[in-house]
């Protein structure tokens, strides 16, 4: 095959896959609002996606908040601006690092899990079985995961914001000689509702991306264990890239 044909094939493949993903996303989103809505499945997924992700999100947030405080202190001391540590920590955590890192951690934990579970169901004909049992897999399997991820990721980000700020607080008060009460007052005074809102909007979008990407890759997996493994990898990589791209777009729109 000539290089030109290879480029042509690759280009068509990108458009084909993008179209397939867009079509899947529209169908999955519609299924979230079309009855029957399986509340028990949504609740189960809220536990699976939200509650069981608390440890990983909390640990990530505390270490990032602590490292952020140290770095801002070092950078700020070059301009005699060490006192801005609490302000920049809370801004960085709520607007950017809380939602992005929670999103990336969940891309690994949740998107991969959804792709593996639905992919295994696909290759073992469980999805076909569901269809023959008069149950739409989009409503029963995919919609509850999307709803749960979109609802619980903002809640996880609120937790990540609080723990991240506390990570910065611990380092600042134990290692950097900040007064605890002053640190907290600066944090609260500086923080605006718009900062938190931006983080929550991002979190909801990232939750949607994570669940749709996992479901898409799992639903279209083929070829046994190899196919499920490939779907899992693609779900994590795809979700991570889309999260970072969406993060930039949302920030740009919000800043404007």
């Amino acid at each position, binding site marked *: 095959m000539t290089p030109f044909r290879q480029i042509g094939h690759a280009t068509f493949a990108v458009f084909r896959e993008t179209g397939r993903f867009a079509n899947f996303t529209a169908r999955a989103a519609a299924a979230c609002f079309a009855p*029957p809505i*399986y509340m028990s499945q949504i609740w189960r997924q809220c536990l699976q996606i939200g509650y069981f992700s608390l440890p990983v999100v909390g640990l990530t947030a505390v270490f990032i908040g602590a490292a952020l405080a140290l770095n801002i202190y070092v950078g700020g001391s070059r301009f005699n601006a060490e006192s801005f540590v609490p302000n920049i920590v809370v801004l960085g955590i709520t607007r950017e690092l809380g939602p992005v890192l929670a999103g990336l951690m969940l891309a690994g934990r949740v998107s991969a899990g959804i792709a593996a579970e639905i992919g*295994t*169901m696909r290759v*073992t*004909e*469980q999805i*076909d*079985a*569901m*269809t*023959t*049992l*008069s*149950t*739409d897999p989009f409503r*029963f399997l995919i919609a509850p995961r999307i709803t749960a991820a979109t609802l619980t990721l903002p809640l996880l980000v609120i937790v990540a914001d609080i723990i991240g700020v506390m990570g910065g607080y611990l380092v600042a008060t134990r290692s950097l000689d900040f007064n605890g009460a002053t640190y907290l007052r600066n944090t609260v005074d500086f923080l605006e509702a718009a900062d938190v809102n931006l983080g929550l909007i991002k979190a909801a979008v990232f939750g949607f991306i994570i669940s749709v990407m996992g479901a898409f890759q799992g639903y279209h997996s083929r070829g046994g264990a190899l196919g499920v493994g490939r779907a899992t990898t693609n779900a994590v990589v795809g979700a991570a890239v889309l999260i970072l791209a969406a993060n930039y777009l949302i920030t740009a729109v919000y800043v404007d």
Partner: protein
Amino acid sequence: MSTDTPKLQLIGLKKRLNNRQVLDGVDLDVAPGQSVVIIGGSGVGKSVTLKCALGLMKPDAGEVRVDGVHVERLKPRARAEQMRKFGMLFQGAALFDSLTIWENIAFRLLYADHTPRAEAKARAIEAMRKVRLAPEFADLRPVELSGGMQKRAGLARAIIAKPDILFFDEPTTGLDPITADAINDLIVDMVKDLGCSAVSITHDMASARKIADEIAMLYGGKIIWRGRPSEIDASGNAFVDQFVSGRAEGPIQAIV
């Protein structure tokens, strides 16, 4: 509706997969109460035929008619209603790993018909008794059952809603001869008990002879022979003779 109307009709089904013409005009009628077994070697398109009949795969050309109604032309809601006429036993049973045996069996009742759980469980246990699966297995997970028990559970799931047409995909594959014979007996009993039609695909001739009113052989994308089990040993068709005798030499090229 005329009593002469076939329960299921496949008319000129064509399907191309991976640049290979898998089905090239499959025609098959199944009368009410009749059990038809489709035989053929590996990769000749038996599963594709079944998936097209069930609506799990869209044929490139041809029609699937159920009670004389062209299924492709139905609106989604009506198609879902048609699906209620079907029961399917998958090759690997395709039980849902996350649910207990009784929830698997009662899946259609619970999630499509919204039957109360207590009533659904009672009906699931009744179905388990019919397929000679002890009720004490009701609360176990599929992974805790043997292959033969999983097939019984799959059969119970297929018959619980009293379908008009039962489909069996390689019902005895992977089972020892005694368990396979027990599954064959169950299939015959269930089809008689429900008075439904049945379409099975298999390459197990012992199974085909036992459960079929008529056997059809699929080769080269078409049905090349159809007749009663008693006629198959004197079919006069070289392809059928080779398949029934299990010889490597003959017009059918073995795929090794």
